[in-house]
């Protein structure tokens, strides 16, 4: 789960990580007041779940509280389109108004799970302010990776090692190491899947401040972090993805026009690949899940019916725990409820395959029943 920068910074502040002074505003008037309390000059930052805000005009320097209010007015309520969003962008509802920092140097710091290291790794770089993938590609020697022992945790010497490698000197080493220790603690205690501070800045006379903050919370740990779940902002999600998410359906919207309904993530990817291989484009990834019941299948199919780009639907189900007849009933129920539906190609295999096919035959819907993946490809060509 993604959260906003202002929420991430508030979490970091709770763990003693220095962040700029400021506050979040939902109206131009609030932005004006915060800017005034900061002494006039401020940075106004659009709060959206997407990177690339600066280049897209979502981050602006302002010299007076009035200017801060104007910028806030120009941002709040509109959609921000960045290279990470779709063409429609994501809505700006809030702006973060912060004090302006005299930046001396920009660094990079993140913690994420690395499967190869079998645990969280700390990634740091002297080259901050750029996308880390770019740094990794161009100047890999500028990237430091440390994988602390996952049960024992981060040792002070490891934190110091990173601090020295980042070029910190004197008291900064102590501050930097403390910041890392706190960040590690935050990552573990809140079950995060990503913390990224880019840039982590050395400002003024040498203080270290997290100028930006990105935090993703591990979805699977939601049961022990009910408080963090309130930070979710459904408005930032694609409406169809939100619907799927709320129903426990794994769904990712793509840009094609062939809707895909599959059980199992691997088979769902395989189905998307089949669609692509014949030159068509999948409209989505969708895994209804192993033990899906009729109601859940119906909701999953309704999401596809609600996607105006879907021109054809390919159902590919290998019945195991999920019975083919249950799947078919869910699909038929969704179509009957909507009244209209695009042509459906259905390939049912495994448990209760024949019963499922019969449900489709009896439904009166436009369903073409096929046997194999080869047939599916042929139908889409």
């Amino acid at each position, binding site marked *: 789960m993604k959260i906003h920068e202002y929420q991430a910074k508030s979490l970091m502040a709770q763990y003693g990580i220095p962040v700029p002074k400021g506050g979040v505003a939902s109206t131009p008037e609030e932005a004006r007041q915060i800017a005034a309390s900061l002494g006039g000059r401020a940075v106004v930052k659009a709060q959206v779940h997407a990177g690339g805000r600066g280049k897209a005009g979502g981050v602006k320097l302002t010299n007076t509280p009035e200017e801060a209010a104007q910028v806030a007015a120009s941002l709040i309520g509109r959609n921000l389109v960045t290279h990470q969003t779709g063409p429609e962008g994501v809505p700006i509802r809030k702006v973060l108004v912060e004090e302006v920092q005299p930046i001396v140097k920009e660094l990079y710091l993140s913690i994420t*799970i690395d499967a190869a290291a079998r*645990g969280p790794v700390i990634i740091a770089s002297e080259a901050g302010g750029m996308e880390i993938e770019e740094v990794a590609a161009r100047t890999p020697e500028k990237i430091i990776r440390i994988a602390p022992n996952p049960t024992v945790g981060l040792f002070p010497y490891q934190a110091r090692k990173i601090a020295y490698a980042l070029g910190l000197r004197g008291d900064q080493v102590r501050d930097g190491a403390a910041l890392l220790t706190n960040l590690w603690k935050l990552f573990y205690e809140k079950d995060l*899947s990503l913390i990224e501070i880019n840039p982590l800045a050395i400002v003024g006379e040498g203080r270290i401040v997290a100028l930006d903050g990105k935090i993703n919370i591990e979805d699977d740990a939601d049961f022990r972090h009910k408080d963090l779940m309130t930070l979710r902002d459904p408005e930032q999600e694609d409406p169809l993805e939100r619907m799927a998410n709320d129903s426990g359906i794994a769904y990712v919207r793509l840009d094609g026009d062939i809707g895909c309904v599959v059980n199992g993530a691997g*088979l*769902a990817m395989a189905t998307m*690949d089949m669609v692509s291989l014949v030159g068509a484009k999948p409209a989505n990834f969708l895994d209804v899940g192993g033990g899906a019941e009729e109601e859940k299948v119906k909701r999953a199919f309704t999401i596809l019916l609600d996607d105006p780009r879907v021109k054809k639907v390919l159902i590919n189900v290998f019945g*195991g725990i999920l019975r083919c007849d249950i799947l078919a009933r869910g699909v038929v129920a969704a179509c009957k409820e909507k009244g209209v539906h695009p042509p459906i190609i259905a390939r049912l295999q495994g448990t209760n395959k024949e019963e499922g096919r019969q449900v489709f035959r009896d439904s009166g819907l436009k369903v*073409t029943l096929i046997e194999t993946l080869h047939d599916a490809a*042929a139908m889409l060509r």
Partner: protein
Amino acid sequence: MSILVDRNTRVVVQGLTGREGGYHALRCREFGTQIVAGVTPGRGGTLWQEDNKTPVYNTMEQAVKETGANTSLIFVPSPGAADAIVEAADSGVKLIICITEGIPVLDMVKVDAYLKGKNVTLLGPNCPGAISPGEKCKVGIMPGNIHLPGRVGVVSRSGTLTYEAVNQLTELGIGQSSCVGIGGDSIRGLSHTNVLEMFNNDPGTDAVVMIGEIGGTSEQEAAAYIKKNFKKPVAFLIVGQSAPPGRRMGHAGAIITGRSATAEAKVEALKDAGAKHIPTPADIGLVMQQLLKARKTVAVSAPKVAARPAAKAPAARAAARPTAKVAAKPTAKKPAAKKPVAKAAVKKATALRGRIAARPAARAVAKKAPARRATPSRRPATRSGRRR
């Protein structure tokens, strides 16, 4: 022959008294698996409600001591699953198969570190389990009826895609030694490479189908191993080539986070290692069939060496000739195997009948298979016919 699970596998189910655990334990037993105990804290001293026979214990330690279980199958819900794995590891079982999906990744990081150096193997989590059809042992949630005893190994990160692969093999009369789902999470027990090592050492496995997907570098590690040490033919499929970067495709581990996590990078590495690329998910069975044919040709050109073991081991001969005759062989054995099953689960007779009914169907298709195999040139005609 097989890997991981066989006739001697004695399974304790953690979460046997739950809905999922109970359902799947029954399906495993129907297949022939020895389900010897269940563990549900607080239910110790009772008998499993499904058969009024299988003992349920409070702790894994007791279950293993009393029943000699050597394998644990875990259905415990995700908040308690990591604890269940550790309890199993400390109980003395040699193999832990964790089906549970959605275990917090930091829990798995801890478990993984804890298991290091212990004499126990973890398969999963978020996996379908393992099955050895010839050994009549299924420890997992895969539909048993699509499997056919034979000599091809299957290893995959997926559940239903593995069933798809197995089904394609079975329809062509190609049986399986063992099929292993390693799971879709980023931190998991056995890797592709670990399972390949087992297949390499298994005299009952002649060739392997390996299925990978986007995310992580497990497939590249497998490629390095195949290049250096693997002695048997491998056909591989990598899914997720149409997935956008940065988005999670259902599995927690299926996310493109850089060049090495892409399908292309994995395909390249495995091709370079000499493995045979399966170009589309529809061709899993066909590519394996070709590999086995090529292998047979080699075997024939070295007559004495190849002929002798073939004569001694009918199973080996079976794999070398994937024909209707081979497909028919296990059928003849089946009824005998089913007797105890029918006795054990009279209540579930309906489900059982479904399974029995499904078998001849699979066979029938298998017989038709040669015709379909020859279709590449005919396929366009079929297609246009169908389209109308």
